[in-house]
């Protein structure tokens, strides 16, 4: 099975701290063509930094290090020069960010912003028709009006569709969507999720959905990675992970979903996250974990369970919850 994105041993660390403070540590991620994969985590878990590292867009002061391999669409990124890596961006790996209003230039029309992008098309007329077909492909019913508009004349959902069309303009193999629906209302959110799912299915693009919203993950992702303090704590097929979480953190996260709980009932309390730096060697969740023992002072290795390949479950815990003992979590 070939992956369109294969990451093995990605770490991101701060430059100036000694010892370096790891924001992302030893991350593995695999995405097949046409698949939507989710990375779910709370704020500060390092999920956005992961996306920036894959795009080679890390802010100053942070450096990515790949321990084993980073292969995007069959290209081993380690062998590329700086310029070649830059050319990968947009053409092979593309991105949609959280705030559609901030990603568009407020003083230029959508048409002007498209022609800046479509450098391979020769002539204004060719660029115009190419933009129209891109906008039609993301479900905008009146592309001519959209092209003539400025960003402030479009709704949040329309702006996000425009940005997805721009991200797809150079036919990338991988699309990273970093909280693409957080700034949108529920109706627009459902539409954008459906669009991302269609993009993966019809174009064979590997989509990585980065979000804190478990509902979005459940709606469109075939597999999910649960991230906490820069580490992947659990990974596997979405249904299996959400119905039978094995890491105590995943379990705690799912317990906070309101779902079918009786209205006005008290929710199970999770100990607050502390902002103290984590011990480099131990489990990152140890200070909040009810099951922590002395073994947790050593970082647990990711443990592969069940069949290998894309259907496998991975849990980084010394005391994983036994599978299928708990009643399934209601995810509504």
């Amino acid at each position, binding site marked *: 099975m070939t992956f369109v994105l294969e990451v093995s041993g990605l770490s991101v660390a701060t430059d100036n701290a000694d010892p370096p403070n790891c924001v992302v540590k030893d991350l593995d991620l695999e995405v097949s063509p046409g698949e939507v994969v989710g990375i779910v985590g709370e704020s500060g878990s390092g999920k956005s930094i992961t996306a920036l590292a894959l795009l080679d867009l890390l802010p100053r002061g942070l450096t990515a290090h790949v321990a084993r391999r980073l292969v995007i669409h069959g290209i081993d990124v380690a062998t590329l020069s700086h310029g070649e890596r830059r050319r990968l961006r947009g053409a092979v790996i593309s991105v949609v960010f959280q705030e559609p209003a901030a990603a568009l230039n407020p003083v230029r029309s959508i048409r002007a912003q498209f022609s800046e992008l479509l450098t391979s098309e020769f002539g204004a007329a060719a660029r115009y028709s190419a933009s129209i077909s891109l906008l039609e492909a993301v479900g905008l019913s009146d592309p001519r009006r959209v092209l003539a508009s400025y960003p402030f004349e479009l709704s949040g959902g329309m702006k996000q569709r425009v940005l997805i069309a721009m991200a797809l303009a150079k036919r990338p193999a991988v699309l990273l969507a970093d909280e693409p629906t957080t700034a949108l209302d*529920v*109706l627009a959110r459902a539409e954008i999720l459906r669009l991302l799912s269609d993009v993966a299915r019809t174009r064979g693009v590997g989509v990585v959905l980065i979000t804190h919203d478990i509902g979005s993950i459940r709606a469109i992702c075939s597999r999910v990675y649960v991230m906490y303090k820069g580490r992947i704590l659990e990974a596997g097929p979405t249904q299996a992970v959400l119905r039978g979480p094995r890491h105590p953190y995943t379990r705690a996260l799912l317990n906070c979903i309101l779902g079918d709980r009786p*209205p006005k009932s008290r929710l199970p309390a999770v100990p607050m996250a502390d902002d103290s730096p984590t011990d480099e060697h131990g489990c990152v969740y140890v200070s909040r974990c009810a099951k922590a023992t002395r073994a947790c002072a050593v970082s647990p290795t990711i443990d592969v369970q069940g069949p290998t390949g894309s259907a496998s479950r991975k849990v980084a815990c010394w005391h994983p919850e036994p599978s299928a003992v708990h009643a399934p979590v209601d995810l509504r």
Partner: protein
Amino acid sequence: METDSALREVPGLRVDHLEVSYRGKGGTRISVLHDMSLAIGAGETLAVVGPSGCGKTTLARAVVGLIPSDAGTVEILGKRLDRGSKGRQLIASCCHFVFQDPYGSLNPRQSVRAVLEEPIRLKGGSSATQCRIRAEEAARRVGLSPSLLTRYPHALSGGQRQRVALARALATEPKLLILDEPTSALDLTVQAQILNLLLEVIEIQRLSTLLITHDMGVVRHLADRVLVLREGCIEEEGPSAEILENPRSRFTQQLNLASLHRLD
């Protein structure tokens, strides 16, 4: 039942035929809220839901006089809210607002302690020591450790900031609480804690709460009644179980389905 008895007391908030409009291009008026009437009893929570642009936030702001209204009346604790200093005093004495963005609503140059002491001092009747004690008490209630009191907003996480905003709102023991998307900026585990806290204070202090949100999960958990807004008009209103399980309007059904992520 509980709702009925709550309404027999003086309602915390009563809005009658409120109209709000903005000035559009060429001096025309654009109606944002049309013929809005609602009442919230003591200890009761009313959720206002709808897609962005439907007027939810405008309603919350017009109720506390942050946006002028064209027509209609607002009564808080049975007292009519008029423009001018009397109205502002009435609001300051019994009503508090928690905004969506906790960072934008905290003064970056004020420590957490100063943020919490200010409303208590402004309400009057407390000595400096009492202000101090009550601010600490307010922080403790939302689960903020005393060591955070000396910090400034930039040194707090999003969840901590929202809890500071909530502690500030609850410090003066208001009777009417207006929450504009109180948990949408928060992580799931923090949201759970904030919801637990809100349920507790609403029940114990018999707070009337106006909850603005588009998260149907939060609505179902917190609200007694739901009001669905569509383009500035009331689409439907009723007990939350009824609106969420058996909505009459097609629009509310769409809203419910979308928030449950049923994509087909």
